[in-house]
């Protein structure tokens, strides 16, 4: 774990750059992480997924599975992979300032 500066804010991140304290997150941080991970501009659709991930995590303490994401976020699986080609669940969690999803699904 290390403290780093994202969008001029000091945040605690793990080895892979996931925020370890969701409370340190804000939208500017989200946009900076997205840019760094190959998404130049977060669209409304990206935000829909990111917010769903974040809210679900804050409510249940667990990030949703890709199955739940596809069924319940309002964005179907195919589009999820178009929005986040390098892994929707992982990347949306990173951008949303929550820990890396631990599930296998």
């Amino acid at each position, binding site marked *: 774990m290390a403290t780093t500066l994202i969008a001029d804010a000091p945040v605690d991140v793990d080895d892979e750059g996931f925020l370890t304290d969701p409370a340190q997150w804000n939208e500017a941080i989200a946009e900076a992480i997205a840019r760094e991970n190959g998404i130049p501009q977060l669209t409304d659709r990206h935000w829909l997924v990111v917010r769903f991930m974040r809210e679900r995590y804050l409510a249940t303490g667990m990030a949703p599975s890709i*199955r739940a994401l596809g069924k319940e976020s309002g964005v179907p699986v*195919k589009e999820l*992979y178009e929005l986040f080609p390098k*892994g*929707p669940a*992982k990347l949306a969690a990173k951008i949303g300032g929550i820990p890396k999803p631990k599930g296998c699904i």
Partner: protein
Amino acid sequence: MTELLEQPHETTAKPTTIEKVSIVVSKGSLEGIYPALIMANGARMEGIDADLFFTFFGLDAIRKDRFEKIKVATVGNPGMHIPTWIGAVPGMSWLATKMMQRQMEKIDIPPVPEFVELLGDSGVRFFACKATVDMFGLSLEDFVPQVEEIISVGEFYERSAGAEIVFT
């Protein structure tokens, strides 16, 4: 006097990431098919490309007439920890399958048909093994729409260039 032979030095390259996996599915039981599907899904979730190559009874996972009826093997399966004769009792396989499906649902693992659809939507590519398809007298129409092509082993290796091959 002994002379020490110089050991060849491995070049200390940084461990690279896996970019692609080619997973062979050769078994047709529920516990034979799931690991491959879970590994393919896990690969896509990490941004890794994934091909699934179905051969022998693994083809059951993509056969329209069978993929909704995949069962746990209760006979000849030491992992069940029940005597073989109990495993052979009519309805046992059905019961074990129901129980496993219930557990899978609890941890959010979809049933095989939904899983196949999820993987297709995730960009996993599906192929059927030509030798087995010919042996069983099947054709592309017998498979779910996610199956792109019937390919030979040679073509499988060609497609798998640079990939990690996983046999299940």
